[in-house]
């Protein structure tokens, strides 16, 4: 459920009231009945969010402060920060490192490859419809199936990739998913395959709203293709690029499906969400699992805060100018 939902948050200015309708009709005509109707229409969604998102998060914090008996269901005691201490002295830092490495490398590759694909699709006039359908295929592939596909591609003896890569001098007879570094590169490759096309679609949509007369004017003034790309395409594409970058980053930090099926977190591919899940369900350590989930939540929130703090203003001004 990760790769599409977050785009929704891309609106730079959420609650901007629609300008029409406030003026002539005035405030009094619909005032109270309008508010009551709004409350009625919003309450199912808000109730769901409160019960199935907000309450569970708060409950996770409470769970993380307690210790639960593995043997006797229902037996628990307040443990303070014990679970957090266990997380910090256990797998947290390693998983955080892997998650950050995965995020930085895969998101960078996705931006570069996605941009290349978008530019090619933008130029290829006739084939664009066909290409758009083609690039939707990786996006539409169930992530669990993606993981199984890439695992079989790199499985020694079964897949074609190890032999092929060996021929060009990469890897030799290494078991790709069985060794640190190699396993991570397969994980990144699978993620790039699944999401670079998605990135390309977002950027293509951004390219399509750049007015063509800007390019014509630049051509008439004698700008080279590189100058046109550097001085026109990149700056005008920046809002779409930043939005895609932010939400891909937040997605990558939460990655779960791919490593869970591809490697089960072995060989240097343990990530935050997967570590929390394993402590919770396999080791039945509810307190520790909850503590790790809360920490994952904190990491994602911290990164979104940093993005909003340092690039968020940028997006707003850029999109404002565009309007």
């Amino acid at each position: 459920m990760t790769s599409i939902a977050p785009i929704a948050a891309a609106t730079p200015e959420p609650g901007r009231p629609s300008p029409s309708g406030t003026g002539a009709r005035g405030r009094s005509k619909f005032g109270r009945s309008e508010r009551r109707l709004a409350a009625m229409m919003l309450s199912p969604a808000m109730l769901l969010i409160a019960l199935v998102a907000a309450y569970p998060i708060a409950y996770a914090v409470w769970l993380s402060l307690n210790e639960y008996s593995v043997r006797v269901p229902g037996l628990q005691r307040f443990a303070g920060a014990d679970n957090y201490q266990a997380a910090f002295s256990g797998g947290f830092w390693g998983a955080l490192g892997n998650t950050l490495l995965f995020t930085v490398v895969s998101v960078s590759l996705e931006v570069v490859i996605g941009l290349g694909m978008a530019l090619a699709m933008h130029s290829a006039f006739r084939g664009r419809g066909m290409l758009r359908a083609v690039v939707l295929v990786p996006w539409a592939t169930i992530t669990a199936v993606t993981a199984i596909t890439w695992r079989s591609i790199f499985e020694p003896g079964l897949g074609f990739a190890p032999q092929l890569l060996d021929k060009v001098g990469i890897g030799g007879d290494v078991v790709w998913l069985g060794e640190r570094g190699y396993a991570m590169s397969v994980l990144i490759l699978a993620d790039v395959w699944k999401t670079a096309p998605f990135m390309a679609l977002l950027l293509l949509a951004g390219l399509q709203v750049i007015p063509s007369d800007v390019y014509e004017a630049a051509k008439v003034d004698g700008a080279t293709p590189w100058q046109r790309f550097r001085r026109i395409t990149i700056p005008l594409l920046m809002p779409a690029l930043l939005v895609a970058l932010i939400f891909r980053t937040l997605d990558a930090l939460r990655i779960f499906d791919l490593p869970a099926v591809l490697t089960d977190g072995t060989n240097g591919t343990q990530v935050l969400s997967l570590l929390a899940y394993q402590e919770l369900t396999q080791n039945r350590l509810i307190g520790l699992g909850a503590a790790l989930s809360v920490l994952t939540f904190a990491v994602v929130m911290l990164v979104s805060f940093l993005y909003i703090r340092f690039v968020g203003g940028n997006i707003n001004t850029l999109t404002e100018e565009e309007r």
Partner: protein
Amino acid sequence: MTAGSTGRASTAVAQAGEPSRVRARSRRRSMPGWLRSTLLWAAVVGIVVFCLFPIYWIVNTSLKSGAQLSSGSLWPSHATLGNYRSVLRDGDFLLALRNSAIVATTTTVLAMFVGSFAAYALARLRFPFKALLLGIVLSISTFPVIAIAAPLFKLWTDIGLYDAPYGLGLILPNLVFTLPLTIFILTSFFREIPRELEEAALVDGATRIQAFTKVVFPLAAPGLVTAALLVFFAAWNEFLFAITLTSTPQARTVPAAIAFFTGSVKFEAPLGTISAASVIVMVPLVVLVLVFQKKIVAGLTAGAVKG
């Protein structure tokens, strides 16, 4: 598509203005036409191979059997449908298909109902704290699923929804995680419907609810289709809730079932069967993508471009 046509396409932007003259000038300044079209052609082939080859590989694997499976060859020398026959006889897999269909459909229908009410209020009605409420809704989409799944694992166990048959325990969490997207898409669609139509209905004596159900809702049908498709895809694909909140085939959905195909017998992974199962669950989605590609792209890019 021929090389010539892509070459022409690459300068199509210029054609918008003064066709022949501008094109001729840009040809002279930039790289030669044949080189440009060759490069573009290569890029297009590259994209198609990059996107589709893994899919070809899994189809290829699903048609192999026995010793062929461990050959690593790029085509099946004796193609067989044996894997498909055995996966369609697998009771657990059929149960998973059933559960996925129930979970994804129910989630989609509920999301459209709950989402369109909320979206209408956000798009059209005036009330305090609107920005805050929309902010709360949208922030849900950045939550890591594990931070919800972990406490729900405990909560669902306590109230008996854990491992509930037909995947019933998965509907609510899926619903909450697809609401932000639904509300966002529908809000932008509702905003584009002319206010005058609704006001005309009000003048004719309709209540606001009637104006919504009889006028706005039908006009927003394209937006509903877009949102419904994206929600259905998300619910069909959802994995973390599916493996955290279920444990038996009675409750498992397709992604979880596929993952556990391998989990139990890792060392003799029935690769042929898993591949066949993967192809079966992929087909409906690929068909939907081909039929509705424009709507899907419109939904995916709504947030990124419109702002």
